[in-house]
C-alpha cells in the first residue's frame, strides 16, 4: 500500500477542516520548498476550486511587517565596516574587517538566540581563553589591538545595528528578534487570521519559539510535525531531540507518534564506494538497472546530495531515460564563464599588486593575460583575430611578463580599460563593473550562445555586478582598505553566488540538498556521501564565540547534528527503497568515515525492524589491466618514402638528423619527415637552445674581426676587460626572442647574467690556453666562423646532400681545427679503435663522435685540396679549464685521418641505404634508456 505523503496528509486535513475558503487560515512552513509542495498538494486534491490559506515561511511571516528590510551581503559589509571604524578607529579596522563574515554570523545567532545580551557580552569580555591569550605586559601591536577589540565587542555590536537601522535595513537575526520582541505592535497585521497551522517544524531558535508562542495566544495554532516514535522516545537519540525539547509547544506525545521506521516495509541498502565520483555512477546504476525508475515514478524519487562536488558527475551519469529533472541547489557560480572572468581578473590584480613595488602595474603575468583573453565572455568583445595574434606572440616570444602598452598595441585601444589596472582599492570596483557591464551587453546581444547558457551567464554577471556596486560603497566607508583585502572580501561574496535552475518543478527526478527535503516525502531515496563531516556536518563551526559560551547561550554542533539526524531519518519515514552511499576512503585530515547514521541504522535499528531489510556492502569497481599500447611502426609506404627522398636530396642531412636516425628511427621520422619539432610550450625562461644561441653569438662576435688572420691573445684580452661588450652581445641576441622588459627582471634576467658569466669564464680559461700556445709559437689563425659546409654523396641512384654548420674553424701549427661549442654537460669522447670502428657509431652515446666525424668528412669534401691534418673537437663551455676535447684517435692530437674518413663514408652510406630501404619501417627503439630526453616519450608511452 502506498503511504500518504506528509504534506498530502496535512493538505487533506486542513481542507477537510476548513473547506473551500481557507482565506482565514494561516499555514507556516520552515522553508520555501515545503511551502510550494504544500500548495502543489492542494492542487492534487482535485477539489473543484478553493481559496488557498495564507502560506508563509516562518521567517518571511516574521519579516513581513517590519519597518526594516533585509540587507544583502555587501550592505552588511558596508555597515560593518562603518561600525568598526566608529568603534575602534581606522587602524585596527582592516584587520578585523577580514573576519567580518564570521562576526556577522555570530551576531546573527546572538540575536536569534540570546535574550540577555548584556550578560552575554559581559561574559564574553571576561572569558579566559580570550583575556589570557596574551600576557598583560605584552604590548605588541597585535596584542593591544586584540584586547581593544574584545573589550569593546558589545559597542561594535550596537554600532553595527545602529548603522543598519539608519539604512533602513537589518540582518535576519536582528529583524527576527525585532518581530519576536515587538509582536504586539505587529499584531494588527494578523487580525484576519482565525486559526493557524505550523507544518514540519523541528529545531527552533529562541526568537522563533517566542513568536510561535505568541501566535498561539492570538489564535488556535496547531502543529503538524512529522516525527517517528523510534527516535523520539529514545532520550539519547539526537533525531528526536527537538521534539522532546518542544514537546509542550508542539503538543507531542511520543507514545502516540507513528512507527514508520520499525514498522515500515522498506529496503535499505548501505553501499560503501571509494571516493565521490564513483558514487554518482553507482547511484545512476541503481536508478536505472536496479530500481528501474519509470518516468511516472520520477517525481517520487529523490537523490539527496550532501556534497555538491558530486553534482557534475551525477548529472553526467544519470540514465538517459530520465527526462525530467529538478535541481534545487542552484548552479554554483564557479561553473560560469562570468565567474571565470572574475577569477582571472582577481588573479591578475592580485599578482600585479603583489609586485607593484618592483614591477609597477604596467606588467602583467602571462598566464593571467592568457586566461583573460581565453575567457569566452570577454574575448567575444575583442577581435578574435587580434587575441589569436596576442596568444601566438606570447607563446612565440616566451613572454613571462607582458607590458600593458604591448598588449593594447596588439588588441587595440578599445581594450585599454581592461588592461589599465586601477591604482588604488577605491578604483577597483569601478574598473571591474566597467568590464562586467561591457561583457553583459555583449552577451545579451550575442546570438551564437544557446539560450540557456545566455541566461546563466547573464544572471551570473548581474549578480556579480550587484556585489561590485556594493563594493563601491564599501571603499567609501573603509578608506584604508588594501586591494588585496577588498578582493578577498569580494571573493567571499562572489563565491557564494548560486544561480537557480529552471527545473521541472514537481514532476521530474528531484535532485536536492538535505535541507530542502524538509517535510517532503519520496518513495525512492538515494543519499550520497553519507559520511561524517558531511552528514552530519560534524564538530566544526566557524565562530568567534568560545565553546563554553556557545553552549550556555547559543547553539553548538549538537543542535546542528540533531537537525541533520532528524532530516535524515525523516526521509526514511515513507520511503520504500533507500540506497545510502558513502565514501570509503579517508583523507588526511579526517573524513571518509561512514556516517554515524549508517552505524545507527546497522547497529540500532536493524534489530528492531519488523518488516523490510537493511543490507550493507562495499562496491567493487571492476578493474581491467590497461592495454599495453601497440608499438608504433610506420611502414615506408610510397608516400613516406617519397618524403624521405625529398629530404635527402633537398634539404639534406645534418649531423643532428643523422644522429636522430641512429638514436631512434621513429624520432627521426617525427622530427625530420613529419616536421614536428620541439614543443613550443611557453617557457618562462629561455630554453637551452636559446642560451646556446646567445653564447654562440657572443663567441662569434669576439673572433669575427680575425677571420682570415691570426688572433693574438694580447688583442683578444681586451674583450675580457670590456664586460659591457659581452653583455651587449648576449642581450642583443636574447632580445630577439624575448620581450625586453622580461629580460630586466626575474628568471630571464638571471639567465642573461648566467650567459654572460658562461662566456666570461670560458674566455678567461681559453685565453690562458691560447697564451701558453703562443709561447710555443702556436698561433690561432681563424679560418671561419659559423660556416656551413656541404657535400654530396651518391647512394644508389640518388645524390644525397649533407650539411653542417660549424662554430669555428681555425688553424694552428699547420693543423685544421673544427671546433664546436657545447653548453651541455661535459662527457668523454669516443676512443676509435680498429676493432670496433665504425660499428660503435650505431650506439647513440657516440652521437658526438658522429657529429665530429661528419664535420671532418664535410671539410675534406669541401676542401679536397687542403691536405692538412684535421682535428675536430668540442669546447665544453661549462668546463672552461679543458682544452679542445677531441676524439681519441690514437694520434696524440686527435687527428682524424683519411683512412678513418673513408671507413666513415661507408658507414654513412649504410645508414642512408637503411633510410631508403622500403623494408625497414620507422619504429621505436627497443632501448628505453634512449627515450629519457626524447620529446616524443609521451607519444611512445615511454615516459
Amino acid at each position: 500500500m502506498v503511504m500518504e505523503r506528509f504534506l498530502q496528509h496535512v493538505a487533506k486535513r486542513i481542507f477537510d477542516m476548513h473547506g473551500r475558503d481557507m482565506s482565514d487560515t494561516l499555514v507556516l512552513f520552515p522553508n520555501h520548498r515545503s511551502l510550494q509542495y504544500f500548495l502543489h498538494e492542494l492542487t492534487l486534491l482535485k477539489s473543484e476550486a478553493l481559496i488557498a490559506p495564507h502560506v508563509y515561511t516562518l521567517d518571511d511571516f516574521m519579516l513581513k511587517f517590519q519597518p526594516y528590510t533585509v540587507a544583502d551581503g555587501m550592505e552588511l559589509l558596508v555597515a560593518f565596516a562603518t561600525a568598526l571604524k566608529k568603534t575602534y578607529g581606522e587602524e585596527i579596522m582592516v584587520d578585523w574587517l577580514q573576519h567580518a563574515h564570521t562576526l556577522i554570523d555570530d551576531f546573527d545567532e546572538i540575536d536569534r538566540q540570546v535574550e540577555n545580551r548584556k550578560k552575554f557580552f559581559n561574559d564574553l569580555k571576561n572569558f579566559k581563553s580570550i583575556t589570557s591569550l596574551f600576557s598583560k605586559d605584552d604590548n605588541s601591536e597585535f596584542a593591544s589591538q586584540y584586547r581593544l577589540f574584545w573589550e569593546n565587542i558589545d559597542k561594535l555590536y550596537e554600532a553595527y545595528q545602529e548603522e543598519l537601522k539608519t539604512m533602513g535595513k537589518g540582518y535576519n537575526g536582528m529583524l527576527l528578534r525585532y518581530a519576536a520582541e515587538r509582536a504586539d505592535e505587529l499584531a494588527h497585521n494578523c487580525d484576519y487570521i482565525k486559526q493557524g497551522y505550523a507544518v514540519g517544524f523541528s529545531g527552533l531558535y529562541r526568537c522563533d519559539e517566542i513568536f510561535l508562542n505568541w501566535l498561539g495566544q492570538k489564535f488556535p495554532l496547531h502543529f503538524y510535525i512529522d516525527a517517528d516514535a523510534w527516535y523520539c522516545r529514545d532520550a539519547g537519540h539526537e533525531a528526536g531531540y527537538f521534539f522532546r525539547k518542544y514537546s509542550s509547544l508542539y503538543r507531542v506525545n511520543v507514545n502516540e507518534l507513528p512507527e514508520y521506521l520499525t514498522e515500515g516495509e522498506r529496503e535499505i541498502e548501505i553501499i560503501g564506494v571509494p571516493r565521490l565520483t564513483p558514487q554518482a555512477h553507482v547511484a545512476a546504476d541503481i536508478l536505472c538497472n536496479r530500481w528501474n525508475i519509470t518516468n511516472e515514478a520520477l517525481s517520487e524519487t529523490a537523490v539527496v546530495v550532501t556534497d555538491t562536488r558530486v553534482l557534475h558527475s551525477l548529472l553526467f551519469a544519470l540514465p538517459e531515460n530520465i527526462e525530467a529533472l529538478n535541481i534545487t541547489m542552484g548552479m554554483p557560480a564557479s561553473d560560469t564563464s562570468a565567474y571565470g572572468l572574475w577569477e582571472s581578473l582577481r588573479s591578475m590584480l592580485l599578482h600585479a599588486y603583489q609586485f607593484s613595488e618592483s614591477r609597477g602595474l604596467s606588467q602583467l603575468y602571462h598566464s593571467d593575460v592568457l586566461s583573460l583573453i581565453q575567457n569566452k565572455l570577454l574575448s567575444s568583445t575583442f577581435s578574435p583575430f587580434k587575441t589569436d595574434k596576442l596568444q601566438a606572440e606570447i607563446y612565440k616570444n616566451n613572454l613571462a611578463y607582458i607590458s600593458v602598452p604591448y598588449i593594447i598595441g596588439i588588441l587595440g585601444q578599445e581594450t585599454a580599460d581592461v588592461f589599465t589596472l586601477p591604482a588604488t582599492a577605491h578604483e577597483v570596483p569601478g574598473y571591474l563593473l566597467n568590464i562586467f557591464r561591457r561583457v553583459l551587453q555583449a552577451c545579451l546581444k550575442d546570438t551564437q550562445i544557446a539560450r540557456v547558457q545566455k541566461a546563466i551567464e547573464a544572471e551570473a554577471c548581474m549578480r556579480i555586478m550587484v556585489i561590485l556596486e556594493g563594493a563601491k560603497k564599501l571603499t567609501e566607508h573603509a578608506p584604508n582598505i588594501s586591494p588585496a583585502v577588498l578582493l578577498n572580501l569580494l571573493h567571499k561574496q562572489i563565491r557564494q553566488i548560486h544561480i537557480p535552475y529552471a527545473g521541472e518543478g514537481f514532476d521530474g527526478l528531484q535532485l536536492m540538498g538535505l535541507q530542502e527535503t524538509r517535510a517532503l516525502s519520496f518513495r525512492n531515496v538515494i543519499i550520497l556521501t553519507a559520511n561524517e563531516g558531511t552528514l552530519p556536518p560534524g564538530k566544526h563551526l566557524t565562530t568567534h564565540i568560545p565553546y563554553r559560551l556557545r553552549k550556555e547561550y547559543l547553539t553548538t554542533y549538537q543542535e546542528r547534528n540533531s537537525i541533520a539526524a532528524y532530516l535524515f531519518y525523516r526521509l526514511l519515514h515513507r520511503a520504500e527503497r533507500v540506497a545510502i552511499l558513502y565514501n570509503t576512503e579517508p583523507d588526511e585530515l579526517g573524513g571518509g568515515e561512514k556516517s554515524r547514521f549508517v552505524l545507527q541504522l546497522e547497529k540500532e535499528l536493524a534489530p528492531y525492524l519488523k518488516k523490510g531489510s537493511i543490507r550493507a556492502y562495499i562496491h567493487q569497481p571492476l578493474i581491467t589491466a590497461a592495454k599495453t599500447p601497440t608499438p608504433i611502426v610506420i611502414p615506408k609506404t610510397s608516400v613516406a618514402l617519397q618524403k624521405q627522398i625529398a629530404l635527402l636530396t633537398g634539404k639534406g642531412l645534418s649531423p643532428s638528423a643523422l644522429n636522430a636516425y641512429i638514436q631512434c628511427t621513429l624520432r627521426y621520422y617525427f622530427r625530420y619527415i613529419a616536421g614536428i619539432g620541439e614543443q613550443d610550450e611557453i617557457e618562462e625562461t629561455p630554453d637551452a637552445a636559446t642560451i646556446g644561441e646567445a653564447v654562440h653569438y657572443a663567441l662569434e662576435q669576439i673572433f669575427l674581426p680575425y677571420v682570415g688572420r691570426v688572433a693574438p691573445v694580447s688583442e683578444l684580452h681586451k674583450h675580457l676587460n670590456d664586460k659591457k661588450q659581452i653583455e651587449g652581445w648576449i642581450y642583443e641576441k636574447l632580445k630577439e626572442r624575448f620581450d625586453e622588459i622580461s629580460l630586466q627582471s626575474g628568471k630571464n634576467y638571471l639567465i642573461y647574467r648566467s650567459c654572460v658569466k658562461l662566456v666570461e669564464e670560458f674566455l678567461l680559461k681559453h685565453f690562458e690556453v691560447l697564451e701558453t700556445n703562443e709561447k710555443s709559437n702556436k698561433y690561432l689563425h681563424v679560418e671561419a666562423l659559423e660556416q656551413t659546409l656541404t657535400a654530396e654523396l651518391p647512394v644508389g641512384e640518388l645524390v644525397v646532400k649533407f650539411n653542417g654548420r660549424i662554430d669555428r674553424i681555425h688553424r694552428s701549427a699547420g693543423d685544421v681545427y673544427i671546433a664546436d661549442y657545447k653548453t651541455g654537460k661535459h662527457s668523454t669522447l669516443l676512443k676509435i679503435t680498429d676493432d670496433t670502428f665504425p660499428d660503435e657509431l650505431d650506439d647513440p652515446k657516440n652521437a658526438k663522435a658522429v657529429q665530429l666525424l661528419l664535420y671532418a668528412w664535410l671539410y675534406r669534401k669541401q676542401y679536397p685540396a687542403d691536405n692538412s691534418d684535421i682535428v675536430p673537437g668540442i669546447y665544453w663551455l661549462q668546463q672552461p679549464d679543458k682544452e679542445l676535447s677531441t676524439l681519441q684517435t690514437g694520434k696524440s692530437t686527435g687527428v682524424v685521418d683519411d683512412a678513418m674518413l673513408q671507413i666513415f663514408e661507408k658507414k654513412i652510406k649504410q645508414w642512408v641505404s637503411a633510410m631508403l630501404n622500403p623494408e625497414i619501417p620507422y619504429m621505436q627503439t627497443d632501448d628505453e634508456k634512449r627515450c629519457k630526453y626524447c620529446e616524443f616519450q609521451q607519444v611512445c608511452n615511454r615516459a
Partner: protein
Amino acid sequence: MLHIYKSGAGSGKTYTLVREYLRLALRHEEAFRHILAITFTNKAAGEMKTRVLDALEGIARGEPRYEPLMRELCERLETDVATLQKKSESTVKRMLHEYADIAIGTIDSFVHRLVRMYAADLRVDYSFGVEMDKESLLNETVDELLAQAGDKNPELTKALVEFAEDRITEGKGWRIEHELTYLGIELFNDEARPFLNRLKNLQYSDMEQVRLMLKEKISQFNNRLKKYGSDAMKYISDAGLTAEQFRYKSSGIYGFFEKYAGGYHPPEPLGNTRVKEAIKQDKWGDEVPVDLQNTLRDIYQGIEALWAKNGSEYRLCQLLYRNFYALMLMADLERTLERIKKDKNILYIGDLQHKVYDIVRLQDTPVIYERLGEWYDHILIDEFQDTSLLQFRNLLPLIENALLKNKDNLIVGDAKQAIYRFRGGEVAQFISLPRIYGSERDSQLRAREVVIHNFSKKPEFLNRNFRSREEIINFNNNFFDAVLKCNGEIIRTAYANHRQENGSGKKGGYVNIVFIENNERAETSDADAGHTHTLEAIQMSLAKGYRYRDVAVLCMINEHASNVAAYLLRAGVPVVSSDSLLLNQSPQVNLIIADIRMRHQPGNLLYRLEWVRTLFNCSNENVPFDRINWHLAINDFQLQVAALANLELEVTDRYESSIPDRILRVARKYQIDFSDPFVQFFLDEVVAANERFGMRVEEFLEWWDTAGCKKSVVCPENTDAVRIMTVHKSKGLQFPVVIFADAWGEISPRKKYYWSEWHGNNPIHEKMPIVLLPNNKTIEQTPFADLYNRERASAMLDAVNLLYVATTRAEDALFIFTTATNSEIKDVNSYQALITKALENMFGYDGGASVSLGEFPQANVRKNETDVAIKVEPYRPSRRLLHEIGARWRPEWIMSRNTLQRIEKGNLLHEVLCAIRYAGDEEQVIHRYRSFAGGAWEAKWEEIIKGIVYHPELAAYFTNQWRVVNEHRIICGSEVYIPDRIVIQTDDCVIIDYKTGEPDKNHETQLDVYASVLTRAGKNVRKRILIYTNTLLIKSW
C-alpha cells in the same frame, strides 16, 4: 599514571590500546568523552573506532569471541559480567549518538581543530585551507622568488646571480629552479625551523663579509699547499730530474707534488699507497738522490702537518662557501613562502603543529579545553615512535595536565618500527621515555619531565607474538639477532628485548629468501626476474589454498610497486594497490588530457601528435601517420584525423566553463565510457583539485603533469586481489602471505642539509648565526663530523626498521627477494649486504641462490568472510552537463538589474497597493516603500494610493467589514489564479484588480475568469472592479 608499553610486531599493541580505552570508557557513561586516543593515520583511527564500537556491541551481546576481553575488563574494573554488559550497551549507544565526541583521531586532525578554533587569535583567516602538497607550494615559492630578481631588488638579485653563476662554475647548469627547490624542502623540515627563525635577521652586508672571509681562508690554505708543491717541484728540477726518474712517474710521488704545485689537490690529500711507499718505505726511484728524498719528505711532512692542523677547518670553509648563497636564499625563500600562504589563505599541514605550539605556549591547558568545549583526562597514544618532536611537545601539556589530576595515560610504541623519520618522526623520544628527549636543552621541558617521570610506571614489554607462525617468529628472532651483530649503539638500544615468544601457539610457517642475480634484474619491467619470482610465489600460495586477498606484495619503492602491479595485471592476477593503478595508464584519460592540451595550444604540433596517438590508442588501431597533414588549421586538422579514424567529432570550441565541466564535455565528444573506473577516478581527482586551478587550463595541465598523473584508482579493501603496497604503508597490517619484493638498495644518509649551532669560537660565528652544510661525505673531515655520523647511524636504523616492519607482517609465509652480492662485503651499506651478512651470521649462508626454512602451510579456509562483488550493469548515461539544465531565463529581471534599479516602477506601485489591506495602513506602507525604493519613488504615487483607498466607490472595500486577501492563490484543479485583491464576507466576495496600462477588454475577461473560479469555490461574486491606477479610472460590474 603514565603507562608505557614497549612492544614488538604482532604483540597486540592495538589490542592493549583498545582494552585500555574500554576500561576507561566503561567506568561511566560520559567517560568516553574525556579520552583522547591518538593514532598515526586516519585509517588507523577509523579502525580503532570500529574496534571499540564492535567490542562494546559484542560484549553487550555476549559474543563468545569477546570473552577473554570481557574477563580482563571485569577484572580490571572489578565488576561482574552482567554489569559490564549493561554498561557496554549504554556506552555504545551514547557513542553512536554523540559520535563527534569520540576523540579517536590523528594528532593532525586534533591540531587542525584547535587551530580553527583559534584562527582569528593566530591571525589566520577562518576559512583557511590546508595544503598537503608541499611540492606545488614549493614550486610556486621558487617561481615567485625568481620573479623578484631585477634592478629593484639588488641584493636578492646579486645572491641569485651568484648562486646561478656558482652552479655554472661547478658545471651544474643554469636551471637553478631545481636547486632552489631542493633547498626549499628545508622550509618544511621541523628540525630546521628554529634555525630558519634565526635566519630572518640576516643582513646581506654582514654576509658579504663572511663570504670574503671564507674565500680568504680557503685560498690561504690552498696557497700554502701550492707553495709546498712548487717548492718541491723546484727542488726536483734543480736536481735535474723529471717525472721519468720517479717511481710510477706522474702517478706516484712526483705527480703528488706536481698536482699541489699546479694548484690542485690530489684525490687523496695525503697521497695514495704509491705516494706512501715513497715516504714510508723510501721507494722513490733509483735515480732520486737521498738528500732530495729527505727534502721532499720534509715538504711532505709540512703538507701532512698543514692538513692535520687546518684541514678540518678548510673542509668546513669549503662546505660553507659552497652553500653560502643557499643560506642567504633560504631566508628569502622563507619570506616568499610565508607571503604566498597568506595570500592564498592556506596553511601547510606541517604549519598546524607550529601554530598550536604558539597556543600551548600561551595558554594553560584547562583554558584551551574550555575554548574547545571538551577536556581530556586520558591521553592514549599509539605508534609513539613516529611522533615528531613538535607533536610530542604539543601533547605534553595535555598529558601533564592529566597526570597532575592523577589520571591514567598510555603510550604504546615500538622503536623497531620507527620508519617515518623522513616525516619528522623522532624515535629517540620513545626510547628515552619516561625521560623526555631533549630536555637537557630546554627548561620548560625539564619541568614537564619531572611530572611525567614522577607519574610514570616502569615501561612494560609486550613480547608475545600473536600474529605469526612459529617458524616466522623464530626466523625474525634470529635474523635480527644477527643483524645486531653488525651494527651500532642506537640499533642495539632499539632492539633490546626484541625476541618474541609465540603467543598464539601456531606452529609451522615458511620463510623463503631468494638472491636474485644482478644481471637477472634487468631494467625493463617485463624481463625483471624479481617479478617472475613474485608471480611464482603467488601461484604457490594459490596452490596451498590461499586466495589472492591473502597475499601482500611489499615494496620499498613506489615505482617498483607500480611495475609489479602492471606485471601481475598483465599476468591475469587481480591487484589492489594505491600506488599502482595509475590514472595515466588509461588511454581514455590520456585522450581527454591530449584533447585539452591540443586545444589549448593549437599550433603545437607535438600536442597534435600526442592527441592523434591517444585517439588511435583508444580504438587500438594503427595510426596512418603518412596520411596526416600536421600543418592544417586546428579544426581542419581534427576533422581530417577524425575521418581517418572513422569518428564523428564536434570540433568547434564551446563556451568556456569550469575544468570538470570541460572534461565531461570532452568525454562526451569521444563517447568515453564513464563506467571505466579510471575515468571516474580521474574526474574525481579533477573535481577535488578544481579549487586550485579554477578555470585556468594552464594550471590544470600543470597540475596533471606534476600531481594528477601520479594519482591512482582506489579499490576498497575487501576485494579479492593481491595487495601491493610500500613497506611504509604496510605498517600495522598483517597478511597470511607476505612477499617482500625488492629488499635491495643503498643505505645512505637521507638528510639533504645539516643544520647546526657553532661549536666553540670562530670569527665567522659572529656574522653568520648558524651552520648549514650540504649532505656530503666530507663533513666527516670537519668539526661537524658527529652530525654526519649520527645521520648515518639513523639511516641504518631506518633501514633495519624497514626490514623489521616488512618481515613481521607475515602470518604464515614470508618471501624476501634480495640481490646477490657478488664480491665480499666490506661495508654494510646496502640492504642486500645487510641481509647477506645477517644470514652468514645466522647459519653460515654461503652464497646460494635461495634459502628456505619450514614448510609452506596449507591455508585455513575462512568461512565467515563472503566475497561481495557487485557487477554494474551497462546502461546509457544521459551525459547531461550542468550548463544545459539552464537557469530561469528572465530578461526583464536582467534589464531592471542592469541599471541596478531593483524593481520596475509600475511593479513597485503595484506592490505597494497589494501591501495595503485597510484604510489607515497606507501611511506605514508608503513610508516603508518610500525608503526602500529610494530614487524610484514617485511623488504622485502617494496621491494615487490615497485616491484609491478613500475613493467613494472603493472605500467600503477598505474597511474591516471585509476580510482582505491580497495576491492570494485560488486553486482550481491544477490551475492557480492570483487576483490582486479579494474582499470576503462569509460567502460573498468582491474581486479587485489594479492595472497600470490603458483599459483593455482582456482585463475584463481575466476578472470574469477569476469570478467563475471563485464561484466554483463556493463564493457569490458580488462585484468585479478594475482600477486603472494611472488615470484612477474605475470599471466595475
